[in-house]
């Protein structure tokens, strides 16, 4: 059944490569600092799958031990990164990575958005039409805020 093991190795390598590439795409294209770190963790997952597959193929414990170390490093990275992100957020009030673009190299031009984003106006809420009876109730302002998303 050596063919089955080769097939298993090939499948896991490709799934791991896909996870790694998806993490890389997210890291390059997302602008939220926390999501960028999530994508870095996703890349680590892809590498872990490949390591475990190689470890099984060669009947070697090194792959699994290395994945354990990867999990340890990921936990440390998450702790440090989230503490740093909290500091950055308190400084600028936003999680956008462009808020820190003055850290770029001196000869690089600043990033200016091609098309500035326009927030679509949320549709006005439909309030029920009630017949006039009694006093008009006082609606607190926080109840009238319409939030179509979480």
């Amino acid at each position, binding site marked *: *059944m050596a*063919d*089955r093991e*080769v*097939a298993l190795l*090939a*499948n*896991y390598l*490709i*799934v791991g*490569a*896909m*996870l*790694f590439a*998806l*993490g890389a*795409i997210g890291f*390059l294209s*997302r*602008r*939220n600092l*926390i*999501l960028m*770190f999530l*994508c870095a*963790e996703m890349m680590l*997952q892809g590498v*872990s799958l490949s390591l*475990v597959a190689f*470890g*099984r193929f060669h*009947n070697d414990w090194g792959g*699994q031990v290395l*994945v354990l*170390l990867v*999990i*340890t*490093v990921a*936990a*440390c*990275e998450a*702790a440090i990164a*989230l*503490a*740093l992100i*909290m500091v950055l957020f*308190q*400084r*600028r*009030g*936003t*999680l956008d*990575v462009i*808020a820190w673009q003055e850290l770029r190299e001196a000869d690089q031009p600043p990033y*200016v*958005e091609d098309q500035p*984003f326009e*927030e679509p106006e949320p549709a006005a809420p439909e309030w029920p039409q009630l017949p006039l009876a009694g006093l008009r109730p006082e609606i607190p302002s926080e109840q009238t805020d319409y*939030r179509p998303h*979480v």
Partner: protein
Amino acid sequence: MIDAGRMMILLGAMLAGVGLWGVLPGATVRSRLLGAVLAAAGLGLVAAQLPWVGGWVDQSLFTLLAFVAVGSAAAAISLRNPVYAAIWFGMSLVATAGLLLFQGAQFLAVATIIVYAGAILVTFLFVLMLAEPSGRAPYDRQAWEGLVSALSGAFLVGILSLTVARALADPAEVVSPVPVPVTDQDRQAGILAEDHVRRIGQVLFDLPGPAGPNRAPKPGYLIAVEAAGVLLLAALVGAAAIAGRARTPQPDPAPKPHPTHSAGGPRHG
């Protein structure tokens, strides 16, 4: 030369890349739908070229887990709401743990769920909710260089898959560098043993484990375990120092207002 199967792999990877560009934030609803269809078609094209890992049950289990892992990862990078993205990433983690279990790595599967999904992801969610609870920030709704990053990722997958397919076409190329071929009996006595968790503990702490017939003396990992412990301690102290300093906010010397941030200014702090 490149045969039909490898051509299909390359084509599928490129299709998936273009589809991913469509589903990244900043696109219209129609392009998101079209992109999702394209990405699924590309994934199917690549998956159809892969060799089977076993019988029907094994194959369908593996296919399900792999599709859930890759699909939820794609959803995690393409959803605009960061809270939903983090939850989809948790789904991908659970499927990845299933894939690890499929390989016989029981301890790692459970550790992935406990450490990643249980601790790291929940911490990410805490910070997300603390920072942007509404998830309607402008920067979450527009991707940065979506086409370039999606195509470079697809190119990476295509190249890696082509390499794997080339090695599969000539299995001797895969197996020959191993000095002694590993048989299933070796695996049953080694990495797939029944007492897997006890065995990995022995390996980690450098205790003498039972050596198989074809196994060279294995190096111990005790120093690596100690280094990981020191790393955890350093990270703990560092995170406490950074977060403790953050509690007394210093005024930013020169907070330059950026033209793109007129919509969401500083909230507090």
